[in-house]
Structures are given as C-alpha cells and as structure tokens.
C-alpha cells in the first residue's frame, strides 16, 4: 500500500552505510598511508502513476548506493628517520608481490625479511617490494646502508649495484580496489599514467592518513539527522496506518 514506508526504510539503511564508512575513517585517523573512503548515492527509479484523467504523476522509490570512493588526496608526510620508510610527496605507487599477485601501495614502513635465499625488502605482512624488472629487492649483509632518491633509484654505500624501484602512477587511482593494510589491487578500467608524472619519493618519511576529523564529524551529524528524519517518517506512516485501521470503530 505504501511507498513512504519502504523509501524511509531504504534511506535508513543507506545512512547506516554512511555510519560504517565514517567509523572506518575515524578508526584509521592515525593509520599511516590510509585514504579516506566516502560513499555516494543516487536516486532510484521513478514510477509513473496514472490518474483518472489524462495526467500522470511520478513518485520516486528511494535512494541507492552509487559506490564507495577512495579519496587519494595526499596526506602530510612525517619524518621517521628509518631508511626503510618510503612515502610519496605527490603521485606514485610502489608495487609489492605475494607469489604471483601484485599489489600497489602508497608506501609505508618496510622491513627486511629473511628467506632461504637471503634478505629481501618486504612490508610487515611479508609482501615483497619489486624493482622495475619485477624482481624482489635483495639486500645483502654489506648493503644495509642505502639511499633511495626521489625517482626511486636505490644506491648502496658499499657496492656499485643500483636498483630501480617499480613506481607506477595512475590516471584514475579511484579504480584501485582496496585490499586492506593500505594495499590496493588493480581494478577494471584502471589506467596507468604513461606521461612523466609528478613523482617525488621520500625516504625516511611516512604519509599520514588524509582523514580530517572535523569533516567526518560533520558528515556523521548530517547522516544521523537524516536517519532521525527517516525514522520520524516511519513513525508518522505507522500512525497513519493505525488511523486507517481504526476508521471503523
């Protein structure tokens, strides 16, 4: 009988999705490299109702989630001094490998992991950092002292070896799919930026989260109010149905 019930209920469920994205953002406000997630909506289809005369009128049927977007706005850089911390000032992603799977990351804290073949640079989950040829970056005992320049070129103090880190930048980074732990996997329609991009790598820095607590709080309040309004509609519709039921005493 009634659209308004379903529209209000559907809108409340949509606002719950806003709550969960906001709480995800706030939980990660101190996570290095975290990118803010936002959820966008659009209206659902409209149904045309014919009245007895020729005129018709249309009533919408609520709201739907358009998609979740990552906001790749750059975070502030924080100096750590560790030569295994890598961050990008502007564009850029490093490539990590876990077996045959490839992951992209904006940088972060790396460590040396010991394997049977020696020491390799990896992240905290044991995903290995790749160089531009797709090989893992091996660091021998003497090569512990190294520098990475702003283009991703690694040079070692005690050897002549030079390693070029794999750095990619994307034209549409919002098509990357979040994998967790600040890692992303390539999504459909992801396009690499083939032009010389604005890449400035910084060794000894980490990128801070780009979540702004004030924006999150105002968004939260807005979503909460909207939730409240919709629950009010449910209440009114409930009263109205009650009245309709009591029409005949």
């Amino acid at each position, binding site marked *: 009988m009634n659209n308004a019930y379903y529209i209000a209920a559907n809108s409340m469920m949509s606002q719950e999705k806003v709550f969960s994205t906001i709480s995800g953002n706030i939980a990660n406000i101190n996570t290095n490299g975290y990118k803010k997630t936002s959820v966008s909506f*659009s209206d659902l289809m409209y149904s045309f109702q014919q009245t007895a005369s020729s*005129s018709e009128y*249309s009533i919408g049927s609520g709201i739907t989630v358009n998609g979740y977007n990552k906001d790749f706005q750059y975070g502030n850089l924080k100096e750590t001094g560790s030569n295994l911390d890598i961050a990008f000032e502007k564009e850029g992603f490093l490539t990590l490998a876990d077996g045959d799977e490839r992951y992209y990351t904006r940088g972060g804290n790396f460590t040396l992991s010991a394997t049977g073949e020696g020491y390799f640079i990896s992240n905290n989950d044991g995903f290995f950092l790749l160089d531009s040829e797709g090989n893992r970056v091996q660091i021998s005992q003497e090569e512990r002292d190294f520098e990475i320049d702003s283009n991703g070129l690694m040079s070692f103090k005690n050897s002549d070896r030079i390693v070029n880190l794999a750095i990619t930048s994307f034209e549409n980074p919002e098509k990357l799919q979040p994998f967790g732990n600040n890692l992303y996997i390539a999504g459909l329609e992801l396009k690499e930026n083939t032009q010389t991009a604005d890449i400035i790598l910084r060794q000894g820095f980490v990128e801070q989260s780009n979540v702004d607590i004030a924006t999150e709080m105002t968004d939260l309040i807005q979503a909460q109010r909207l939730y409240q309004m919709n629950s009010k*509609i449910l209440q009114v519709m409930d009263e109205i149905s009650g009245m309709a039921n009591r029409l005949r005493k």
Partner: protein
Amino acid sequence: MDIGLQQLGKSLLATNSHLAVISNNIANSATDRFKSDTLSIRSFSDYFIHEDHISNKENLYEITTHTDFTSGEIYKRNSNDFALDGNGFIAVIYNDNLCYSRGGSFNVDADGYLVDQHGSYILGTQGNILVNNANVEISKDGTVTLDGIYADTIEISDFEDYRLVNKTGKDYYVAEQGANVLQSNTNLLQGYSEKSNVSITSEYLRMIEMSKKFETGQAVIQILDEINGKAVNNIAVF
C-alpha cells in the same frame, strides 16, 4: 453523502502519495544533484471550472508532480567531479538511451571513452569522446583538449519547458517528445559537485501537515459514518 465519503477516501489516498514524495525527498536530501519533487493536488471543482467538462465526475482529484530545478549549493569535491554552475544539462548515453545529467564525475572506460560515474558515455558535439591515454583537460565552456589539442566540446543544453523533463533515477533526466532544447552558457566546473536542493525544514513541515490532514480526514469519515448510521438506525425506524 456518498460523494463526501468518496472524496474523503480519495483525499486520504492522495495524502499517502504526498507522504511518499516527501519521504523520497528526505531520503535523497544528501544525494548530490538531487532535485526535489512536489506533489500538487487540484480539487475537483477547480478542475471542473477550469477544464469545462462535466463527464468526469468520478475524478475528484487531479494529482501532478513537478520537479524543482533550482540549482543546489556547489561545493568543492574530488578533482574528477564536475558540476554545472546554473541551469543546464549535459547529454549522456545511458543503456543506449539519450539522457540528460546535471553532472557527476569524469572517468575513462576500458575502451578509452570519456564516461560518467555510471559508465554512460558523455556526448560531445561529435558523439562519444575518445580520450585513450591522453591528458584530458576540460575547460569551463566544455571544451575537451587531449594533450593540449582540441578534441571536442561537451555541449551544455537547457530546456525551454522543464515540465517536459522527467526523472528516470540515477540522477538522469529524459526529455519528452516536443521538448525544445536550447543552448546554454552555463559553466562546467571541474572539481566541484552540486548538493541536493531539498529543504529539510519545509519537507518536515509538510510531513506534519500531511499527517494532520490524514487525521482530520479520518475523523470526518467517522462523523459521516455516524450520520449514516443515525439515518439508518434512528430515522428509518418503523
């Protein structure tokens, strides 16, 4: 007496439709680019005088919805978002149909075409816009340049009569036959998005008004019912 009951019944149903429109507006009050709807009801007698025909007696209410096309507030958002700063629409191809949109976000699909947030092709004056890997720049008047070379222009159009423009969901609009398309000088702003133009306060007020209207209507129905009961049980006692 019968007419009274019928009229009231229809009025209650119309109130229900009204609440559905209000709740759709409130549900979408945080949806970017959403335009609010209003339901208007003309009573039978207005209609009667206005249209000057009598055959339509059972049509006690004339319901129409219309969309308020006032622009929403423009605010800064992601760099691939875009909004129209004033009246106007851009044309897109959604599921092979020509639709009009108030903005959204630019994307490039797997075949290298410029698309919007729902994957619909954005139309230039020469049809779909192929951008491939080029560096795309879109200026305020809709001019698309690829690596600095002019490629196409995103046409910004407007309608003479908004009553012929209907919503289809997904923030798209379709034009009815006979809708007159005009050129528009509205600017296309990249990096901005448009908020919905729903005024929560007026929707809330209207919701209260409608629920009270329903209450009154049902009270009057009960009175009419009592009167009917009296007529049957008291007057017609032999």
